[in-house]
């Protein structure tokens, strides 16, 4: 079990992918620019459809030898396509930075640089999302969005598309695009063009038809390519496989998939296209073991495939997931470190009637995870009271082998969260994970990672009458001189006002971003494959989906809780430090005040130790953020959902915060997710889990992340694995939502920092997703090493 024999094909493809040095590919940018120029006068949605169509018809295609699944997002293996329509501002500003930056380095060849600067980017000047958003923002909101030391970051959707979606693959595989075209044609023929909103519907339906034809011919291009290669191929095995690929691409995704092989290829084309249409990240897979199962069962029963071949195909697919690349802006790359795509694939869980649905494919997907050594897909296991023990044990076994995936989710919490916002029970039970940890029902346009916001900065402002300690400028409202605060309630009141003030501007920015997307960047392909958009004739960016969320995250959670606990205990209760003394020390970054700083660190209770004193404060902090965010409605007829997690944003956001009463130094990293501050948790994982379970996870509707790091030695024996599983089950029993593990020693991580070449395959869970450790910047690497490592028991 622990030393599986990996398939030669998996090893070869895995190694070939790891050997690629990430580069920028210019083809998409070139084709998109031409298409926009050719279709200048068209309505936007049609222009977008024709653009995607041109990309699919004209981009270079290739077939990697021995890879059984075809279809790539760019002209060669693991290169990043460009999306000038949303990215042109930073592409121009950062073109020379891509190769030099610390995070997510990309090679940009000289001729590409020249073509971009001379031929492509000038066309997009002032037309990309960021330019349009900045023009549209009210003055005060714009000031906060563009602050150097930000309190919130909406960069992800200002420089990119929506992402964070899970479409209806079941329908796509079942009908094929020919079938979807029929549905659209029926809608078109029934469309009453005398109605006031009919022209938008007409345009959308026409766009969907254009894209359906484009994806069908895209597959046919691969069929032709495979036959062309087969003609000259001398290796009989590969020749035969090429001909099989050709036959499959003749059929899907045009027609319904007839067997497992066709279903896998059809899935991949329809999934890939979401990544070609938009540069949003976390285009997730959903319940793969469920929608693929009928094809698996049929093919096994009719004998057209055996389990070994299914496993081989799954591993080919696993490798394809990591081919997806993005050229993020440097700012975004810091927040979503490691070329994070976070294509979440969910296993296990229950069906609409509440019965467990774990099947053979669920287990084979775990095996594929064990046998591939890559960051994607982001693998999630749904856990409920009837989850089969052998499935959970296998999941834990895969984690223990040092894989850092899968992550675990509590069905009880996910289902309650969705039902509380009006999703019916049956659909709530069919939830998946979008991106990192966000529960979404089917038929949903999640936008679940809308922004990262800095509650630690809000506390800094509350202790400085709204003035930023770093730049001495007013950022938040005047909440009074803290020297006049009489008790911790006064501090919390000021903190709440600061949170409400910045959240208001964050929401204003997000509403405008959503509107700009709807107007300038409709997504006809995404609308085609997501339910309800065809039915209501509305693009997904305008609210065509059944469920629409906007989910901004809070970062710096433990820092705020610990700071408030230190203020309460040492200033207001014990009075061993005065407010004046503390404020003075913080302004000077604790220079010459190390004893005072150590008192703050060591003489006050800390989050993550199962101490009610601070855990109750933490629960109140969560409540304040969640109440503030939850009251807003988005532009697509949906709700705002608060999350408490940081991905890798705790490092860059920490750089925007001054010294805090928890002893954090100026510009130091913040704590990650809902985890404890580095080095402050003294009682191990059950104490951390107990603290975390005191939050009401059902109000944190966009999710929480709880990271735990274990050394491999702890998990080498059965006791260790059993302990890990019981830890997960105990945490979920107590109401926790999500937990994940890094199983790697700090020695290994330090060695990887020193010799990145020798550790290029080392995967680390940064937060809700995994990445290659050596592709992270030094700050994030250090942060991961410092996360308390549980090893001594």
């Amino acid at each position, binding site marked *: 079990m622990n030393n599986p024999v990996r398939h030669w094909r998996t090893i070869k493809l895995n190694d070939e992918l790891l050997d690629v040095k990430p580069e920028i590919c210019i083809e998409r940018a070139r084709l998109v620019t031409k298409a926009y120029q050719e279709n200048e006068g068209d309505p936007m949605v049609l222009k977008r459809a024709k653009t995607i169509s041109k990309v699919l018809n004209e981009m270079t295609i290739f077939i990697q030898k021995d890879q059984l699944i075809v279809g790539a997002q760019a002209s060669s293996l693991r290169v990043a396509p460009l999306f000038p329509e949303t990215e042109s501002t930073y592409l121009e500003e950062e073109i020379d930075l891509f190769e030099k930056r610390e995070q997510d380095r990309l090679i940009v060849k000289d001729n590409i640089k020249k073509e971009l600067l001379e031929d492509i980017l000038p066309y997009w000047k002032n037309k990309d999302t960021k330019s349009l958003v900045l023009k549209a923002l009210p003055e005060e909101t714009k000031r906060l969005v563009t602050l150097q030391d930000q309190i919130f970051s909406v960069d992800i959707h200002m420089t990119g598309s929506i992402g964070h979606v899970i479409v209806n693959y079941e329908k796509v595989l079942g009908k094929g695009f020919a079938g979807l075209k029929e549905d659209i044609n029926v809608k078109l023929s029934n469309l009453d063009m005398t109605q006031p909103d009919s022209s938008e519907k007409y345009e959308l339906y026409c766009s969907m038809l254009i894209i359906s034809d484009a994806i069908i011919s895209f597959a046919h291009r691969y069929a032709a390519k495979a036959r062309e290669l087969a003609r000259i191929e001398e290796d009989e095995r590969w020749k035969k496989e090429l001909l099989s690929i050709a036959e499959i691409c003749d059929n899907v995704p045009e027609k319904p998939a007839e067997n497992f092989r066709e279903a896998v290829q059809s899935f991949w084309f329809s999934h890939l296209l979401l990544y070609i249409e938009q540069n949003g990240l976390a285009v997730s897979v959903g319940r793969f073991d469920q929608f693929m199962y009928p094809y698996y069962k049929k093919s096994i029963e009719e004998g057209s495939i055996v389990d070994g071949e299914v496993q081989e195909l799954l591993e080919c697919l696993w490798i394809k997931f990591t081919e997806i690349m993005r050229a993020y802006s440097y700012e975004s790359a810091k927040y979503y470190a490691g070329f994070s795509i976070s294509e979440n694939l969910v296993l296990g869980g229950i069906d609409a009637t509440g019965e467990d649905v774990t099947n053979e494919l669920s287990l084979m997907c775990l095996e594929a995870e064990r046998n591939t050594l890559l960051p994607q897909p982001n693998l999630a296991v749904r856990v409920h009271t009837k989850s089969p023990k052998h499935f959970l044990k296998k999941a834990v076994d895969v984690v223990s082998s040092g894989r850092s995936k899968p992550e675990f989710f509590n069905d009880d919490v996910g289902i309650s969260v969705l039902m509380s916002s009006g999703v019916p029970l049956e659909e709530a039970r069919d939830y998946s994970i979008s991106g990192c940890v966000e529960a979404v029902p089917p038929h949903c346009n999640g936008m679940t990672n809308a922004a990262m916001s800095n509650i630690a900065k809000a506390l800094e402002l509350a202790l400085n009458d709204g003035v930023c300690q770093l730049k001495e400028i007013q950022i938040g409202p005047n909440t009074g001189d803290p020297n006049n605060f009489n008790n911790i309630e006064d501090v919390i009141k000021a903190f709440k006002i600061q949170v409400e003030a910045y959240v208001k501007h964050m929401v204003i920015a997000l509403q405008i971003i959503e509107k700009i997307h709807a107007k300038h960047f409709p997504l006809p392909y995404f609308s085609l494959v997501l339910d309800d958009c065809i039915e209501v004739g509305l693009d997904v960016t305008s609210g065509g989906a059944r469920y629409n969320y906007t989910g901004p995250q809070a970062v710096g959670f433990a820092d705020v809780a610990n700071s408030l606990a230190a203020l309460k205990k040492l200033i207001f209760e014990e009075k061993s430090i005065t407010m004046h003394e503390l404020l003075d020390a913080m302004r000077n970054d604790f220079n010459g005040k190390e*004893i005072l700083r150590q008192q703050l660190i060591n003489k006050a209770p800390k989050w993550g130790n199962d101490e009610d004193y601070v855990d109750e404060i933490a629960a109140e902090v969560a409540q304040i953020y969640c109440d503030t965010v939850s009251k807003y409605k988005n532009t697509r007829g949906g709700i705002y959902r608060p999350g408490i997690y940081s991905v890798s944003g705790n490092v860059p956001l920490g750089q925007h915060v001054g010294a805090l009463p928890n002893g954090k130094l100026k510009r130091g990293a913040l704590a990650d997710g809902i985890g404890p501050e580095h080095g402050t948790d003294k*009682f*191990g*994982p*059950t104490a951390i889990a*107990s603290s975390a379970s005191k939050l009401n996870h059902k109000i944190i509707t966009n999710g929480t992340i709880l990271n735990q790091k274990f050394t491999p030695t702890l998990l080498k024996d059965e006791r260790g694995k*059993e*302990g890990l599983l019981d830890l997960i089950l105990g945490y979920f*029993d107590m109401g926790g939502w999500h937990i994940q593990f890094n199983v790697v020693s700090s020695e290994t991580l330090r060695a990887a920092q020193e010799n990145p070449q020798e550790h290029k395959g080392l995967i680390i869970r940064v937060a809700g997703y995994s990445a290659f450790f050596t592709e992270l910047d030094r700050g994030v690497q250090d942060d991961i090493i410092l996360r308390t490592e549980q090893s001594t028991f």
Partner: protein
Amino acid sequence: MSNIEKKGLIFNFQRFSIHDGPGIRTVVFLKGCPLNCKWCSNPEAFLNNTQINYSSAKCINCNTCVGACRVDAIKNVNNMIEIDWDMCVNCLECSETCSTQAISKIGQFYTVEEVIEKVKRDAHFYKKSHGGVTISGGEPVMQPEFLRNLIPEIRKYGFNVAIETTGYVNWNIFYDAVKEADLLLFDLKSIDNDTHLKYTGVENRTILDNYKKIIKLKDVVTRLPLIPGINTNEKDLNNLANFISENNPNGVVHLLGYHSLGKAKYNQLGLIYDLAEIKSPSEYDMKNWAEAFKNKGLIVELL
């Protein structure tokens, strides 16, 4: 004094222990031990009183402790704190003033209720894993009254209770203290009396006698620390395997390979680690040694 007697002196609560009995457990470490094993990884358990621990890595050289010390046992020499351990009277005042916890207090008195309050915290995890509480040390039976009161109180909550013991206590006191526990983790350091005396400071006769008696009365897991070159020669291992299998046929044996993780603690307590440089045994060695016990029909687990 009577007040103190009702309380137990404890130096650590370790949650999520998964190698000290079944399931997820909290280990409660009681302070004080009649043995003085040279390889001991918990030297802070030797004394049955509160004491200080000094960790220079945490020290910021603020000299607060120098001023706090009543007997001038702490000095700053060339920007380094030096403690004259012989002069220290364990008044603990330095530890109370230290802001960084470079000087920390080892040991605290707890009532039974206070211990229950602590161990109850992981009730969910015990339930999930069929785990519970392990009371270790030092030698927990050095505080027999406290132990006797504590065990039934913990069991009231349905938590499994294990006692880890050296067995070096008068039989009547020993049995009376542990009789209500679910399980004993009984340490045997060496079957050879000379080796035992040399490396633990005491002879092994009481221990072996108590072992023979308790085995008939309670569930016992036998735990053997294996210190390469000291208690791992073939003859001793075979004798030990014989002794165990004769008294406890088909019993469970835990083999604990030596590690030097406790070494750094000695210096922090003003003690000297006088065991020569020893390497942790390899997995190969451990498996090899395990054979001696497996051959006698014992069930062996390597920890």
